[in-house]
């Protein structure tokens, strides 16, 4: 089962990379605000059903993929085509 994990800097955490990108976008003439940079992790999870896969990916996030002190995460599961 395909899973996508989005890891983001938590709200209120300073994100200097986001700020740098935002200022570059402004220099290019775009009117933008609040740029934040995170990361995407695509995974193929070997699990019997979506619930099991989600539990596994949550454990991955807590243990390794995100640092809960500064990052939040979201998990998206792609259902296999019927």
């Amino acid at each position, binding site marked *: 089962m395909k899973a996508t994990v989005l890891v983001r800097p938590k709200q209120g*955490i*300073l994100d*200097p*990379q986001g700020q*740098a990108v935002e200022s570059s976008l402004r220099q290019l003439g775009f009117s933008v605000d609040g740029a934040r940079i995170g990361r995407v992790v695509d995974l193929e999870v070997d699990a019997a059903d979506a619930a099991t896969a989600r539990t596994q990916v949550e454990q991955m996030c807590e243990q*390794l*993929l995100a*640092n809960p*002190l*500064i990052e939040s995460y979201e998990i998206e599961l792609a259902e296999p085509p019927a």
Partner: protein
Amino acid sequence: MTSPQPRVGVLRFPGACDDRDALWALSALDAEAVFVWHTETELPDLDAVVLPGGFSYGDYLRCGAIARFAPAMEAVVEYANAGGFVLGICNGFQILCEAGLLPGVLRRNESLTFVCRDVPLVVERTDTPFTVRCEEGQTLTIPVKHGEGNWYVDDDGHAELEARRQVVLRYAEPVNGSRNDVAGVVNERGNVMGLMPHPEHAVDPLLGSADGALMLSSLVESARARFVATV
């Protein structure tokens, strides 16, 4: 009669680069310094452990995030929980934070640039195994070289940490955006320390400063006392 030599282990992770300097500095300061490979599941008989600087596992994902799961790190966590002295330098500090042995996390420098220069540091505590040879309020000059030394902990965590006096070293000037200019912290028990500056690069006046030797010889002295006590 020569004083007994304590044995200090220097962990080697793939991507480390300051392991040899740490080994050399500790040997020069009269310790028997030995390498410990990251795949070891048990530590040899050691009186202290040093996690050196570098870019373990290429700093992939987050710095220190992969190294914390190295087999040798399980042994280090056990060693620390048993009261053993553990010093993490730069990447070693990042690993100790990721492993939960030290509070906080090291983030990208606020400037987004790599910082590589000698920095002044104020010693705030001398009752730790890592600073017994320093004086309180003393300013040490020790180099930093890192892209991710911006130490962060949330408001509550920070207040607790300052109240418990877990900050051992503070930058005398802003260096990387680190919260309250924290350069080095200890755990609550005081046997595990992490710092971003590199004392192993400052053990001889020829290198610009010998102030780092005050810290590493503090560790060697503490390790020796521990060694003597257990013989």
